[in-house]
């Protein structure tokens, strides 16, 4: 029984080896097997007539394939065509980049315009605030500053969109205010503003806060 099992195992092993060799033969023929596989194939070939025949057939097939069907492509024509294609692709790429650059420029332009518009509203608001003759007079104490004289206060002001410093400066000159410092990391400016004498500081501050584009405004203590 043991002998039978051993014999069967040996047969199965030989069959497996045969199948592996058959599968590897094309690469044995083209000489790309690694050393171990090559030795395994050689060992099997020594005892297998069928595989030796198959090897010889594959060698012939390889010879036929290598010798046959010479394909003459026109390299120069092909190269010229491909170079033209490369030129075209690069031109396209450049034009896409130009479009993208123009788009970025346009975007910057529109953002600047939007900021300028916002600033203009701020400017108009400040101007209205300074020169509004219809503002009702508020109760004044005897010790308060004389009407029309006004007072200077420092104010922190931040905007929804960043405003170019030069434009802001221009706006402030026209409203007789100054930039003390800023913008800081949060984009907040410290301004020195002239609060007109006929308007209370609270009203003045509220009006500043109500101007479109102003994120927050507060007098510094």
């Amino acid at each position: 029984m043991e002998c039978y099992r051993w014999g069967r195992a040996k047969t199965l092993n030989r069959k497996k080896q045969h199948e592996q060799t058959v599968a590897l033969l094309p690469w044995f023929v083209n000489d790309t097997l690694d050393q171990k596989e090559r030795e395994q194939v050689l060992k099997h070939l020594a005892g297998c007539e069928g595989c030796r025949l198959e090897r010889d057939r594959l060698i012939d097939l390889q010879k036929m394939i290598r010798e046959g069907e010479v394909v003459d492509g026109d390299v120069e024509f092909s190269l010229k065509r491909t170079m033209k294609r490369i030129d075209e692709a690069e031109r396209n790429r450049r034009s896409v980049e130009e479009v993208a650059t123009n788009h970025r420029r346009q975007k910057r332009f529109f953002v600047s315009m939007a900021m300028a518009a916002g600033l203009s509203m701020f400017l108009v608001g400040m101007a209205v605030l300074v020169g509004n003759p219809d503002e009702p007079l508020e109760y004044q104490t005897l010790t308060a500053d004389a009407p029309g004289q006004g007072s200077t206060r420092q104010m922190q002001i931040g905007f929804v969109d960043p405003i170019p410093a030069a434009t802001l400066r221009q706006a402030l000159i026209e409203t007789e205010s100054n930039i003390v410092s800023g913008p800081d990391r949060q984009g907040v400016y410290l301004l020195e503003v002239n609060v007109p004498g006929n308007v209370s500081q609270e009203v003045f501050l509220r009006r500043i806060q109500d101007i479109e584009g102003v994120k927050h405004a507060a007098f510094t203590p």
Partner: protein
Amino acid sequence: MSIHELTTSRGPEDAENLKLLQQVAVKDRAAFEILYRKFHPQLTRYLMRIIRRPELVEEVVSDTLFVVWEKATQFQGRSRVSTWVTGIAYLKGIKALDRLKTMPEQHADALNEYDAADESDLINRIGLQQWLKNGLDQISPDQRSVVELTYFSGYSYQEIADIMGCPVNTVKTRMFHARRRLASLLPSLEAAVAEPGNVRENEGGMLSLGESENLE
């Protein structure tokens, strides 16, 4: 790792190809022209084997080498440069075939005659190479690719798996089916090569492949 940091120990030819590809990666047109002239013949031949349509082959070769120009920086050195380039050609070739949605059958008539005709007469009539060509027409593009890459280009099965983007066992299976098909179409290959016109009986070597059907 950038392509410019790559080195190769896969022989002088691969070293030369890698150097050219590194130059192509920085858009060196002269290097690209050298690389183009070098790869054009082998790609033309390989694609001719897969696609079998001369009018398409030129276009696919150009597509392949255009991709090499565009994507040279993406080469990572995991294989030989030629393996990488051939892999691109394979994908382009298969895509071209997909577009066609047909299997090339231009030599089907001659093969139909083959069934009834005397083998030696056929070889004499259409010539050995034409006979082989007809045989290759009867196997799938993937099988032709494996046959061509093995016997003509001399790639290992691992490299073919890289080129075709499939497992090694699939390569072996495709080769197995190609061999079986070719064996049925070219039963007297050995005799025909030795002495055209004097065809011997099939001695069973190729037919013994039937034992290895389940390779995967």
